[in-house]
């Protein structure tokens, strides 16, 4: 192609290349452009997150700064009736029943849903990818789009009577809420788990199988281990969905601001209280501020969960070792 060329020609070419090496080219501009775009996007997302966090924090804190509610009373009180004053002339804003219920419902729903989601994910990735992707995946993704109200009504017409017949009581309570939420978070956890299991390189499996490991040993020791961080993310998003869900839960959990005494008594979550109350209160008043405080607590609890799950996930994770060359 190039072979031997005359010296002058080579010299000219060399000067040209030297110049090119020193000057920015199209590629450099493209990269500035790309970098700029991605930085703008992440800044935008950051601004969105910050603005909404700021919004909730300022309103949520107002209960304590403007209405002078005692923070501890808010967190540990069990009487919720922000429009009324108690015998000491203090507003009744004890959020503990809702905090406990939200916590129970979310954790239970995630605990119940995770084995099912992992079972389905493993089935679709390790056991029968063909059938799995063809039929199961579209149907599971379908579930995300069913409006909460529909889940709520099915829960109300099927699950609540079922629980009533099986265990007595009214049927409303944490158990009913958990069952409805379990179905609602299932698609999120399953889909994201599938993605993370799929991304475990094939040669990991081959290597393990070649060493004489059974399929389960391979799944258990290699695939799941390698996919742990992704699965944890899936669980976090599942719990987030459970946390934030209101319309469906509120129909089946009974929506009573009572301390839950077991899984079968009516109780109320932070979100359902927030959703039912917010349209009936006036901005800037204590009942309204108290609802925003619930939202703030919800955020903080979600943050704690997030950090906790990440912390648990760090132990035994192998992801960092894979990606070290990046």
């Amino acid at each position, binding site marked *: 192609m*190039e*072979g031997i060329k005359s010296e002058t020609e080579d010299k000219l070419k060399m000067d040209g*290349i030297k110049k090119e*090496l*020193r000057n*920015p*080219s*199209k590629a450099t501009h493209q990269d500035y452009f790309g970098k700029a775009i991605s930085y703008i996007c992440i800044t935008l997302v950051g601004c969105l997150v910050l603005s909404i966090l700021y919004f909730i924090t300022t309103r949520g804190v107002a209960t304590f700064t403007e209405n002078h509610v005692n923070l501890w009373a808010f967190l540990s009180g069990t009487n919720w009736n922000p429009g009324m004053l108690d015998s000491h002339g203090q507003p009744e804003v004890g959020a503990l029943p809702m905090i406990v219920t939200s916590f129970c419902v979310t954790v239970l729903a995630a605990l119940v849903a995770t084995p099912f989601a992992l079972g389905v994910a493993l089935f679709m990735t390790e056991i029968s990818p063909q059938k799995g992707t063809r039929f199961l995946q579209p149907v599971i993704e379908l579930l995300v789009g069913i409006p909460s109200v529909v889940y709520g009504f099915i829960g109300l017409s099927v699950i609540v009577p079922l629980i009533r017949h099986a265990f007595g009581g009214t049927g409303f309570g944490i158990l009913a809420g958990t069952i409805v939420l379990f179905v609602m978070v299932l698609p999120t956890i399953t889909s994201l788990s599938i993605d993370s299991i799929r991304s475990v390189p094939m040669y990991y499996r081959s290597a393990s199988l070649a060493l004489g490991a059974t399929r389960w040993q391979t799944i258990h020791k290699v695939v799941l281990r390698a996919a742990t961080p992704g699965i944890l993310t899936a669980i976090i998003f599942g719990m987030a969905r459970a946390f934030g869900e209101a319309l469906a839960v509120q129909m089946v959990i009974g929506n009573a601001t009572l301390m839950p005494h077991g899984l079968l008594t009516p109780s109320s979550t932070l979100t359902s209280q927030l959703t039912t109350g917010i349209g009936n209160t006036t901005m800037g008043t204590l009942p309204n501020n108290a609802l925003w405080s619930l939202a703030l607590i919800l955020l903080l609890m979600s943050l704690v969960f997030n950090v906790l799950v990440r912390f648990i996930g760090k132990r035994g994770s192998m992801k960092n070792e894979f990606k070290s*060359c*990046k």
Partner: protein
Amino acid sequence: MQTYSFDQKHIIHIPTEKALTTENLQVFYGDNHAMHDASLEFPRYRITALIGASGSGKSTYLRCLNRMNDAIATVKGKIIYRDTNINSKKINVYEVRKHISMVFQRPNPFAKSIRENITFALRRNGIKDKQELAYRVENSLKSAALWDEVKDDLDKSALALSGGQQQRLCIARCVAMKPDILLLDEPASALDPISTAKIEETLKELRKSYTIIIVTHNMQQASRIADYTAFFHMGHVLEYDKTEKIFTNPQIKATEDYISGNFG
């Protein structure tokens, strides 16, 4: 493990035209001093082999030559190409890589068709003419000795090729860019002997028009194809000379032990 002195070195200068030179090249991964003081000269239109045990720093060194280590390591020292120190922030790395191209240890064709694998980068660099593209596809595949095997399947996915074919496609992909220097990082280590032989044939052909620097852990391979050979040990270059001298009459104890298999 036997320890060798790093003070004793035998590094020759190249009498002929130099394609690339490094001066006191040092690499740090965080606090880890991975490469000490490598000063080598690479002759034009020759094959130079970099040999050494795993972890000796030969791959690290190679990856510095077209600035692929930028993101993960700190590289100090000079890399002179065309009278220009290309190890500098002011240098346009994308231009560097157009002239100094790299083939990796594991074949990494794009998840695209065979044709697209070659034309993708060309088109992004402004070559739009269809005839020119077709000419380059054919030419590069021929110089990588792959043309006869794939000429009827150019629109098939590159991932459907065998490992050896994939690696030759990766070579063709670089060649199509018409670079000056080809860097190869153990290109045959993941391949069978037949594919390896084909790649070696290919390299011998390419040597006529390209300067080739190849990292290999296979000493036979180095002795078969390389004109010059550098021996790396624990982040130091201990010996650099013509290949036959390295293999028949090494000046350094470590080199001698390594090539005679008494190493470690």
